[in-house]
């Protein structure tokens, strides 16, 4: 990324979308909408002072909703360009409230609340669509209860939990515990506040809240002050009860040590995507190995129909995972996930080797979700005038693997079909080659220069 940002021949238009394209191979005119960041890219040094001081917190999409960020933010720490962006949906200033803090603290004077979307015209010889994929939403599979059971997460959420720079600094805490801890924090703040309030009442009337409440219950009055005291006291009791229950629940909260990986979630499934997403078997193995490296007691079970460890060194990696990292591979499709005691998800599956239905409880279940065509691919395909396949990937043929149906427009990576990083990187070079062939052909001067 950094190399791309620094390269003199690359203009990076981040936070931008292709709006329109005309012309033909060798000579396209492309209109790009550069969305307003409300931050001047040329001035912003990426120091991050604005995010530090911004008073508004928002759920962090990059960390899969597992953490928080500010309304003026960098999508993620190592992002290029490092220019911050103001989230217009949450920024107080942009929503008519009084704020303007970031503008005051920014030493570079980069904050510009009046910035507008800009349309930019580009003259290019060839276009490469590398728009990637989206993660399949497993809530569509009712029997896996993804939204209902807190300790069922997607692989991409799990990657954030595993990441040293993620919301848990790489410790695999269970979402149920994380949520409980977050709730405890909120409740404790509220409890402190109501405690102060009750103390004030007690001082004012010279009696304990319990005493007062007993009497009040027997003979309620419509004195506003007393009514409030009673209400606050009641709420406080309920809160304390909830806090005790939560504290009890997280008392021995430990990191998840028994992991289940469910393969082909949305893939190889006629109800959703019939294709195989190619990379999920490998990333589950990788994640199980990393989890075991972080905490050697961690054991994992990977449930799959076939474990498709297909690629250079992959089968060896899979076997090593089994031998050294506590991974058990189980052949079969998981029928259902239910919640058992202790917030433990229970996996119900048929073991095809023994032909029996089994149940097993885990600390955390990870869903290897399908590689879905990227959102907005249909609109983009219409703009670019390229054909899609039956599922919504950009269509190609085996003998011309990066050529789309439109001459001069090429595709690489998961925009064309699910594939892993090495394959995507190789294809990126392939697409660059095809693009270069067009560009140099259309430019007689350069054609001579290279000949």
């Amino acid at each position, binding site marked *: 990324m950094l190399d791309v940002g620094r390269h003199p021949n690359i203009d990076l238009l981040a936070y931008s979308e292709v709006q329109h394209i005309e012309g033909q191979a060798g000579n396209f005119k492309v209109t790009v909408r550069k969305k307003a960041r409300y931050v001047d890219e040329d001035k912003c040094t990426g*120091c991050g002072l604005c995010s530090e001081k911004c008073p508004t917190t928002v759920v962090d999409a990059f960390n899969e909703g597992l953490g928080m960020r500010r309304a003026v933010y960098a999508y993620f720490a190592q992002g290029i360009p490092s220019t911050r962006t103001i989230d217009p949906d949450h920024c107080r200033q942009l929503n008519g409230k009084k704020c303007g803090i970031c503008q005051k603290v920014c030493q570079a004077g980069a904050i510009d609340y009046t910035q507008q979307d800009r349309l930019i015209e580009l003259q290019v010889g060839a276009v490469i669509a590398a728009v990637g994929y989206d993660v399949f939403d497993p809530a569509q599979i009712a029997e896996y209860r993804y939204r209902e059971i807190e300790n069922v997460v997607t692989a991409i959420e799990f990657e954030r939990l595993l990441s040293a720079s993620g919301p848990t600094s790489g410790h695999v805490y269970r979402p149920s515990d994380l949520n409980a801890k977050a709730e405890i924090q909120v409740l404790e703040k509220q409890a402190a506040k109501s405690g102060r309030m009750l103390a004030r009442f007690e001082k004012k009337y010279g009696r304990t809240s319990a005493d007062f409440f007993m009497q009040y219950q027997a003979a309620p009055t419509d004195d506003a002050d007393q009514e409030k005291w009673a209400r606050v006291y009641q709420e406080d009791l309920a809160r304390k009860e909830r806090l005790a229950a939560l504290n009890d629940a997280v008392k021995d909260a430990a990191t998840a040590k028994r992991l289940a990986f469910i393969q082909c979630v949305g893939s190889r499934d006629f109800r959703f995507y019939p294709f195989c997403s190619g990379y999920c078997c490998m990333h589950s193995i990788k994640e199980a190995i990393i989890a075991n490296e972080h905490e050697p007691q961690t054991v994992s079970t990977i449930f799959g129909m076939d474990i498709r460890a297909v690629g250079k060194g992959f089968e060896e990696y899979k076997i090593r995972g089994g031998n050294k990292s506590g991974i058990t591979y189980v052949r079969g499709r998981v029928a259902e996930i239910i919640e058992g005691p202790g917030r433990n998800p229970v996996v119900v599956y048929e073991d095809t080797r023994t032909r029996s239905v089994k149940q097993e409880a885990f600390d955390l279940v990870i869903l290897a979700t399908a590689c879905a065509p990227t959102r907005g691919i249909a609109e983009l395909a219409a703009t670019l005038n390229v054909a899609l396949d039956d599922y919504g990937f950009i269509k190609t043929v085996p003998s011309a693997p990066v050529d789309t149906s439109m001459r001069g427009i090429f595709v690489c990576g998961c925009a064309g079909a699910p594939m892993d990083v090495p394959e995507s990187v190789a294809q990126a070079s*392939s697409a660059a080659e095809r693009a270069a062939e067009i560009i140099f052909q259309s430019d007689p001067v350069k054609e001579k220069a290279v000949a």
Partner: protein
Amino acid sequence: MPENHASDIRIGVFICHCGSNIAGYLDMEALADFAETRPHVVFVQRNLYTCSESGINEIKKGIQEQDLNRVVVASCTPRTHEPLFRSSCAEAGLNPYLFEMVNIRDQCSWVHMQEKTDATEKARELIGMGIAKAALLQPQEIILSEVQTRALVIGGGIAGLTASLSLARRGYEVVVVEKDQALGGMLNHLYKLGPQMQAAKELAAETVQKVNAHPKITVFTRAHVTQVKGFIGKFEVTVETQSGAKKIDIGIIIVATGAQPLVPEGLYGYDGKRTVTQFQLETMLAKGLDAAVRHVVMIQCVGSRNDERPFCAKICCQTAVKNAILIRRQYPETKVSILYRDMQMYGVENEAMFRDSKAAGVRYINYDPADPPQVKADKVGVYHPLLGRKMELAADLVVLSTPLLAREDAHETSQLLRVPVNENGFFLEGHVKLKPLDFATDGIFLCGSARFPANIREAVAQGLGAAARASIPLSKGSVEVEPIISVLADEDACRGCGLCVALCPYGALEVRQTEKGRKVHVINVACKGCGICAATCYQHALSINSFTDRQIEAQIDAFLTVHP
């Protein structure tokens, strides 16, 4: 740049706050005060953001106004910011290699956030060491070397031919060396290609015809490379052709030598007649299957995914499914069963082919490698896990899916080019994820089944990709190399033993006969400055020019004296 005597050395030290990233955790004033006391330091400045435009201007101003001839920046990581600071020095007229960077963020403030005193102490030590080294830095010049705009492609299969056509279309001359008598590689032996069921010979003929017609491509068949000397841009290659040996100047090399199917001698009663390989089945299908064949049983993972060859050869499952579909379509009376461990039908097209095969009536039975199928006179016995019992399948023809293996002579090619192969004999790329088509050695690339078994889609994509990678030095016409490299600092000490030559992973060293006897010679362009040679040389004859023994000793001395 005038020669600097020790007394002329004027070091400027710029200490970065990185907003509060550094300043929030270290005592910046103490660091600046300390830097002032170090020898040769004439200028010390603290900056909020040294990498910001104003920070950069401060460095330039310092060089010009304070007449600095060495610059030290104590800030973040050189991985991201060294190039920027170097070029800023150059813009101010200072040789960019008279710059030294000290990382007090990642190594001090970030990792010791809670220990201000100790972290500051560590930063003092590091800054002191950086200054000590800076005083001994010497100017270096970027190494430029011309590139011969002619490519050599070894192997004329679909991957190599695709790469050749691409480079030729870009205007470069290409020499293809094929050891067989015809171009086309594996395609010449196949029947139809999944998933589209295109005739393999058609694709081969079409591609070969384009190659033969292209004026920029020279093809040598029944030829092989016998010697490779030189380095990126200037390879001197000897090719043994049908009309004798030829010496050719080459700029870059692409390895596309493919792979070969395992012949399963001794496995499952392999006899090449009733029990054949998928590779043989292709020829049988091209000729037409014997009408008597009514029951075909295919066995997957024959000779692969075992102790001897632990790898999965990736494409044999696709081949089996394809051939099973072809049989079902062309001989509807014939039944096909596939006995498998995991059906590796990854991706969109393969999985679709897998579904099609089931719709076409192909039967799948999973087997456990601990209890493999038994091939008998006219039957194959297998344990059926869904039925939970052993069963016998009628079998007039047993087809073994054997893996593609590295070519028998891959090892020789690897030695010839000084590029590595992995434990299975396939060529090893420079970086598994980020450089899948490059070797670690500059100017040599790889694609197709020579890298790892690939289907046509993958082989073609990789051929294009390798061409793109190769075209970078070709289109520039020259290569620029970082001058932080190995130098023969003490020629007299070198005994020409060649220990370093054997260990250099980039082929950047050779022993030459000189007036003073056998001496090692560093090929500047090929050297990556990794330092293995300098660390190995027991005579201390070799040295990395920005990590000399003297510089490192000075750093150690500085570390020892910084301590109060």
